């Protein structure tokens, strides 16, 4: 082989090497994945819920009830199957404000104070004179006592719900107090115990004429099935203690006034209406076991 042929052969080999090698380098570069491609969003994370039980106590309160709001002592327990899925039970076991009237009920109670069915109002101008409602039969306004006796209020609540926890993070309060937190949505069902106070007396008759026009009132009470949907959050002060806030929408059929709705001659199940009943809770939760795993 001459020197010229040898040089040409080396040149061709170099060219072929470049043409074959460059696509291989290019393909390798394209196949190269970022080392963070499949990484979790947060590494070395404290898995504060996974396979842990939570137990706690707190308070819950209804919001925007028609007649009576309730402030209840609350118990809460739950188990987390994973860091993002749990099953919980909440119970408002004791209503410590059985006489907490809503502002609407206060105004209604004042307005019913002039009912001519109340013997104490017999001398009121509205109940005397030629144009006034001089007899029970002509005034359909119920008395304060009978209206109140027919109204129901929430006595106890027992709810079971699945908790889906998609949001987890960490925040600082005024740059000093650092807390892990999670935000979850919940859905489930339970029972609401509706109670009333006092006894209904629907009989109203004029004296001495004897003309009667009975009131239509029958309180709707007892344990009722309720659907539950809501949101909540945990703010972890440390690995085993958290402050829990929940907002529930309890959806159940109710006749809170205990009065006729449909125009029928009596109060029946046909007078029930689906109602949304908002309840907010604040609980202090302890997570067990106290030791917490740290993710990779």
């Amino acid at each position, binding site marked *: 082989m001459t020197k010229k042929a040898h040089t040409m052969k080396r040149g061709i080999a*170099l*060219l072929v090497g470049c*043409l074959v090698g*460059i696509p291989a380098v*290019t393909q390798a*570069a394209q196949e190269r994945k970022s080392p963070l491609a499949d990484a979790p969003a947060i590494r070395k994370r404290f898995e504060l819920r996974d396979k842990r039980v939570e137990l706690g106590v707190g308070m819950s309160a209804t919001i925007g009830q028609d007649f009576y709001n309730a402030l209840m002592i609350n118990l809460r327990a739950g188990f987390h199957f994973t860091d993002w899925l749990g099953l919980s039970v909440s119970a408002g076991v004791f209503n410590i404000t059985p006489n907490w009237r809503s502002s609407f009920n206060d105004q209604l109670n004042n307005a019913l104070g002039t009912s001519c069915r109340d013997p104490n109002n017999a001398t009121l101008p509205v109940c005397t004179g030629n144009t006034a409602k001089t007899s029970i039969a002509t005034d*359909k*306004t119920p008395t304060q006592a009978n209206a109140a006796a027919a109204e129901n209020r929430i006595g106890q609540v027992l709810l079971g719900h699945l908790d889906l926890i998609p949001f987890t*993070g960490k925040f600082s309060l005024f740059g000093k107090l650092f807390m892990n937190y999670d935000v979850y949505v919940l859905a489930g069902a339970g029972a609401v115990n509706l109670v009333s106070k006092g006894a209904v007396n629907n009989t109203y008759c004029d004296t001495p004429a004897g003309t009667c026009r009975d009131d239509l009132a029958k309180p709707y009470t007892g344990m009722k099935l309720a659907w539950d949907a809501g949101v909540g959050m945990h703010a972890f002060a440390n690995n085993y203690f958290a402050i829990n806030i929940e907002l529930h929408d309890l959806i159940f059929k109710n006749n809170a006034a205990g*009065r006729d709705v449909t125009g029928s001659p009596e109060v029946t199940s046909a007078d029930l209406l689906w109602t949304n009943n908002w309840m907010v809770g604040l609980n202090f939760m302890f997570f067990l076991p106290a030791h917490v795993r740290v993710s990779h």
Partner: protein
Amino acid sequence: MKRLAFGLFLVLANPGFVAAAPAAGTGETADEKASEAEAPATEVPEAKKDELPDLSDEVKEAATEKEEATAAATAAQRSWEDIVVVPRKAFLKGGRFELAPFSAISMNDAMIRHYSFGGDLVYYLSDVFSVGAEGQYFIKERSERQSLVGFQYNRVTTLNRFKYSGSLVFGYVPGYGKFGLFNKYIVHWDVTLNAGIGLIWTEIIPVIPDKATWSNMDICPHVAISTRMFVTDWLALSIGLRDYIFLDKFEPLNRSSLVPTPAEVAANTPEVQIAKEHATSSLTQNIMVFGSVGFFLPPSFSYKTPR
């Protein structure tokens, strides 16, 4: 030599190689790059320090000691206080406008519910302070309870409906953070506090439908709290609560029995005017929960500092 140069040319001319080059680089992060960019211009690179042929050993030693002392002093100044909670905000608002259409629903009136549709136009003076305007139109809906009061209790309720409102609003963002979504995605969010003052127009709903109605224009301050989640560089979703507090005038309970004065009779004063003069005032609180979609302009932003 020519062959080597030719081969090198082919390698460098290959676009795939060029495209792959950054990915196959040192793997430094954007923050590291930014930190490099922030490095003082006077700093002498390590490689060049050994190439100072004109310096004697003593001079080089003195220079090294001086640099070490400077580095030690700088290190002493750095502490945990230099570590920020959120190292780099994913979203900057300062100097940008936000146009946010929103919808809201009233929460606290058992007798009448209001839905509203409106918008906010906000300018962020900085990343935490903002000033803007808000306007909304209300649609009323009487509640089932309100419709039953007359039937069940033989009583009627005095109600006002809200028509529309407008406010000047100031905002402050006290908190900024991020959370993991199923530990797969990082979502950045902030908390905003607002206070505003404006006007609200309301209208009485007559107890007797045949009676004439009238409108009120009330001064209406409000406070609000909301949280905002950043979706893209120009899009954010917000939810929050707004509490409007104002002194409103309601239809007098005794409107049907009002007797005009002789002067009013002489002036032929309309009945609705007499009723308005006897209106009862009451402090009204309207708490609304709202959701909005915020569009930021300009749609992009750039960082001025490495963190």
